[in-house]
């Protein structure tokens, strides 16, 4: 069960849910329960209500009763950021949405018909109320980020309800353990695999896109929430101070104005293979986001044997870089400059970090491993 589901929804917990569902469908009968929403901001009903089959998976969609009012949501977010009551938190969750009582009723009514109900993303109305409607069959994949939401009081008892929790990272587990006694609850750090390409064609990518010279790659939504504004400022300052000729290549949908500068190249959306070829051609992947529960593009960069330069203020990214020995990280500009200088200057270091990253990926994030962890966990609950 997930708040949105569709082949056109890229990235985030929704994509995570879809590829897990498609892989688990090789071992069990899988159905998806979700809303008719496609837009994560408004939750506007977009897909038709009812059942459709996507990549062999039956998807049951339920309507959203009320779209999200951003102004009201902001007001309630401000309210729960200060002194507030439990009722305020319930109201905040309602405003967060997607408000789909029909989906929650379906879980309550038909939940017994499933062996397991896997809920993705703890912070949404559908997950919170859906899981509470059928906790005895529930497995939670929280995809929690360290953005403070998990500290709302209503979530502490909530995390104790499911039968098991599938964590994205060790750091995510530690973060939730701070607010809820889930130490003894069944669970495992699993994460997710990737749809890997047959091979990489970095030279072809350069030719097709007319890109000469070395570049740093950013993959994902170009958004302030992803730390892109800080990345632009740091990168331009780095070039100015060091005289570096490195470029910054951006792949993804821009929702933030990108500085007009010859060193910053924007490609917008690209096909999956093109993304992999870009990874093969880059010097390193930069991941400036402060809030990640698991960065799939970071793992993909490691599969492509590329080092990562990550935002060290994100505990998950910092932990992944340390455990894999596959990337450097920064908490402020000075560390950004020194880390990037080092990566730019030392080809042997880049290779070694990339190789370490690949070993880390192979040891933890191949689909065989991810599927096995899910199946073992679900099997232990039977």
């Amino acid at each position, binding site marked *: 069960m997930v708040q949105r589901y569709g082949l056109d929804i890229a990235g985030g917990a929704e994509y995570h849910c879809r590829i897990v569902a498609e892989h688990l469908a090789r071992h069990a009968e899988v159905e998806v329960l979700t809303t008719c929403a496609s837009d994560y901001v408004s939750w506007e009903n977009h897909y038709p209500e009812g059942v459709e089959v996507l990549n062999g998976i039956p998807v049951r969609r339920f309507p959203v009763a009320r779209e999200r009012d951003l102004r009201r949501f902001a007001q309630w977010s401000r309210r729960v950021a200060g002194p507030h009551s439990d009722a305020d938190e319930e109201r905040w969750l309602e405003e967060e949405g997607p408000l789909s009582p029909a989906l929650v009723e379906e879980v309550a009514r038909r939940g017994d018909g499933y062996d397991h109900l896997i809920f993705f993303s703890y912070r949404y109305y559908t997950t919170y109320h859906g899981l509470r409607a059928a906790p005895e069959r529930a497995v939670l994949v929280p995809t929690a980020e360290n953005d403070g939401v998990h500290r709302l009081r209503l979530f502490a008892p909530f995390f104790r309800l499911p039968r098991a929790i599938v964590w994205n990272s060790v750091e995510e587990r530690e973060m939730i353990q701070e607010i809820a006694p889930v130490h003894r609850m069944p669970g495992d750090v699993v994460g997710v695999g990737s749809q890997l390409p047959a091979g990489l064609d970095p030279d072809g990518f350069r030719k097709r896109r007319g890109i000469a010279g070395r570049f740093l790659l950013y993959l994902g939504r170009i958004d302030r929430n992803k730390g892109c504004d800080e990345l632009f400022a740091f990168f331009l300052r780095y070039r100015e101070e060091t005289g570096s000729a490195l470029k910054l290549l951006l792949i993804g949908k821009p929702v933030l104005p990108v500085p007009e500068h010859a060193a910053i190249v924007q490609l917008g959306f690209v096909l999956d293979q093109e993304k992999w070829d870009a990874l093969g051609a880059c010097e390193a992947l930069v991941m400036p986001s402060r809030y990640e529960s698991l960065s799939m593009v970071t793992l993909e960069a490691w599969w492509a044997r590329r080092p990562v330069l990550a935002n060290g203020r994100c505990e998950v990214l910092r932990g992944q870089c340390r455990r894999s020995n596959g990337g450097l990280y920064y908490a*402020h500009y000075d560390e950004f400059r*020194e880390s990037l200088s080092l990566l730019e200057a030392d080809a042997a270091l880049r290779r070694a*970090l990339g190789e370490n990253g690949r070993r880390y990926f192979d040891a933890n994030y191949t689909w065989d491993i991810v599927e096995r962890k899910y199946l073992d966990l679900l099997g232990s609950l039977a």
Partner: protein
Amino acid sequence: MSFEIKTEGVDVQAIMGAIRKRIEEKRQGLYSDAEIREIAEKSLDAVLDAHEFNPDFVKDFRAQPSRWNFSFHEQTLYESSRGAVGRALHGLRRLLQPIQKLFWNPNPMISALSRQSDLNAYYAHLLTNLAVELTKLNLELQELKNRQLALQGRVEFDSRRERTLEQMVVFREEPEKKGPDGA
């Protein structure tokens, strides 16, 4: 970079430690006056470039005030730059000066423009010094921010540790109660 990383058995934590040490060393040495002036000039560059000044003007501005600022004295209005002809012209204008003064009084204008010339030089000096001082403050602010981040990290770590220890106490299993027969 002044330090090398051994690529065999790369240890990211060790690399980050080396990077932090290097940053710390830089900060301890802080910046020399010359480095601050250099950084300040970069800030000034940004200001000037932002307004799309004529590049020649910027170059002149940097070189010597005499090349961009005008100097003004009592005779400036009557002088000419055309060599010998100019000197003759200057003499003629001086001769006609008393007649000209019957029509208008140039003294307030001469006085105002002289003062403006001095003010221009003063403003340029002030602007450069302000840029230097701002740069110093900016560096100090950056250092304080970095210290604050480091302290925040320590506080977060300590509070996590504290909570974990508290939970260890709360959730420690009670020893199983034995029956009267000791079973």
